[in-house]
């Protein structure tokens, strides 16, 4: 199987280039990450992030045949050759498939991703009904892989000002939490031409999310709440 991988090492390269690797497939090669790990055992200069190899840690997000995804849950059998692999688009490349995710995490941090509840805490757990808890499904599962935000043209243009799909999905995760007491402040913070309203419902985020989450839906919910409190 042929892999065409974007390479770049600022220590020696003036610009990125593609390198082809031909790899005979073995029985244990199911996922793209299996192949990349084997390529690395032949050429140890290939740099990539990886950890859990089961789609839950979010390390090995990359652009695979033009679409963002996690290498560890992308089946080799589903890929057309040559498999063209590039770093996530829109963020600075540090080396090979490794991008600088600072802007992405800054946006995540900016939504205050924690429950805000200044009330006195009970001795036991705060109560939450199953119906209230269900509101968090489809939100709390985000693995911060950045597949969505780095597939979003609005994020490419304004990564420093637009929160991006991952950040907004997480913003709504706390807005939707019955325990959170800061919904108004959260909406105030997002009611801004850039932070929320750069989303033009292109929906690339929904298309690429490896966990099947729907940031566009979460963004719609936030807008709905803004409208509702305005009337």
């Amino acid at each position, binding site marked *: 199987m042929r892999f065409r991988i974007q390479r770049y090492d600022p220590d020696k390269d003036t610009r990125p280039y593609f390198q082809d690797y031909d790899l005979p497939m073995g029985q244990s090669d199911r996922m793209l990450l299996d192949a990349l790990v084997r390529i690395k055992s032949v050429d140890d200069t290939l*740099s990539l992030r990886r950890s859990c190899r089961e789609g839950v*840690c979010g390390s090995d997000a990359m652009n695979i045949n033009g679409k963002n995804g996690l290498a560890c849950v992308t089946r080799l059998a589903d890929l057309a050759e040559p498999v063209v692999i590039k770093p996530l688009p829109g963020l600075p490349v540090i080396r090979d498939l490794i991008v600088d995710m600072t802007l992405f995490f800054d946006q995540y941090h900016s939504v205050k991703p*924690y429950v805000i509840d200044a009330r006195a805490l009970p001795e036991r757990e705060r109560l939450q009904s199953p119906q209230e808890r269900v509101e968090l499904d489809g939100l709390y599962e985000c693995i911060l892989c950045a597949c969505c935000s780095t597939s979003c043209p609005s994020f490419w243009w304004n990564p420093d000002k637009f929160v991006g799909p991952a950040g907004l999905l997480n913003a709504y995760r706390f807005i939707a939490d019955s325990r959170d007491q800061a919904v108004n402040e959260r909406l105030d913070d997002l009611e801004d031409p850039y932070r929320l309203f750069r989303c033009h419902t292109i929906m690339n985020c929904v298309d690429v999310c490896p966990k099947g989450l729907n940031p566009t839906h979460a963004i719609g919910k936030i807008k709905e709440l803004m409208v509702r409190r305005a009337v």
Partner: protein
Amino acid sequence: MALAVRKFDAVIVGAGGSGLRAALELSAAGLRVAVLSKVFPTRSHTVAAQGGVGASLGNMGEDSWHWHMYDTVKGSDWLGDQDAIEHMCRMAPEVVIELEHFGMPFDRNDNGTIYQRPFGGHTQNFGERSVQRSCCAADRTGHAMLHTLYQRNVLAKTQFFVEWMALDLVCDAQGTVLGVTALEMETGEAVLFQGKATLLATGGAGRIFSSSTNAFINTGDGLGMAARAGIPLQDLEFWQFHPTGVAGAGVLITEGVRGEGGILLNKDGERFMERYAPTMKDLASRDVVSRAMATEIKEGRGAGEHADHILLKLDHLGPEVIDKRLPGIREIALKFANVDCAKDPIPVVPTAHYQMGGIPSNFRGEVVVPAGGDPATVVAGLYAAGECGCASIHGANRLGTNSLTDLLVMGRSAGMSMVDFIRAHGAAHPGLPKDAGQASLARVARLDAQAGGEDVSAVRDEIQRTMQAHCGVFRFPDLLRQGVEKIRALGERVARTAVKDKSKVFNTARIEALELDNLYETARATLFSAEARHETRGAHDREDFHARDDVNWLKHSLWYRDGDRLAYKPVNLKPLTVESFEPKARVY
């Protein structure tokens, strides 16, 4: 070459559950803490825990921490230290409630309390019947917990050093720990992080086996650092083989599947666990279930074309329960086994999962070593928590859900101990020895200069194959002896690893070579300790010594890197406040 020095009150190595929980304690105390992690915190392996965190909240029926304690002692096959076990089980409800207060999205009951599911080895009234003790967020409990803890650290403004790999402990001549050396992956720059207290929270080394549920990052870095500093490693012969790893892929399928009613079948469709554990059946403790599965396969009753796996059936739970309680499992089974578990069983095999041993520590999270006749002298300035520590809560076998409980309780306890130590310590950092950090620089320089050396991935494969073949679920005397020789011989190759990548920027080849040093120490400790322990206890199953031997082996192993020396220390059978649970036969 001089190393840049950065000073903090505390240095934490590892940003998984225990490191993050400890960091909150230090940040809340207003202390300056540096948390170093090889990966962005939410990528730590805690994220992969599925089934739940054990705590006797009693939300589903009567429960008590004392029953939880009994189950944990029995689960440990009496090798666990009962002071540490009492401490964990007593504190468990408090730290779980606190986690809810932090914002953890636990599943809920109709009355709004936290939902709890049954899990292996957890019982009511000292072993009478199964109890619902596992607090969960569907089958993504570790993910929800790790993200919640990270989020609280964002609020607490904890200072993280992300994608920094710790290299070695820095000690003075008396053995007091003064901090660590670490390498920034993006730049290749090495820095000495000086701290009045240092916590190792680096997780396990499940990657010593070729088939493992563990992430690539689980290379036992804290264990390697401790071993190189002359600190022994404790009880490394005890490795948990989780009953249900996806056959071929190794990916974990939570015990929560059986907690929710899933069952194990052999090729004849027989629910064989009824024969091995008449009371608890599929929810016996993990060592018992894994051994039963391996026995079924060994005796020709494995399923599939090669009779090499067992079937985990859960379709009878119905798609509604599966999608509500086990959605992640359905996803994993589809992706890694091509099976829709709402219709067909998942092929599973026992797979290396958890390291019961680790850096010898106590229930306060302090690292302790034998010195001057005392088997547990505190190493000043050094702490260990989570899977890399060995308090010892899990003894010879860990119960499901107790890993997450351990992270929270021991992370918090270690953090509190560090706060006390730092406050007693005074404002100034002690002076560093002249050669502080030079050993780390020498390791990196050796690697960079090595010509014609050994290929890192080839040596790693050889270590993993050796462990898999010589130190698996069943342990045979000849295989163990050969394994010891093989692993000893591999030392020469580990010392001569070379990397082709010479870049300073994000040189992951170099990181893998440095990780291999740590992986190797853990593998060596495991084989030497296993070969020497002439009994069967918990996860350590000797084919030449079939029974537990409390007369000769009710003791902890301590492996020293220097000369592969083994020493032993007594098990603490004395709890903090309650009566001791005396060793007795272990039947489920």
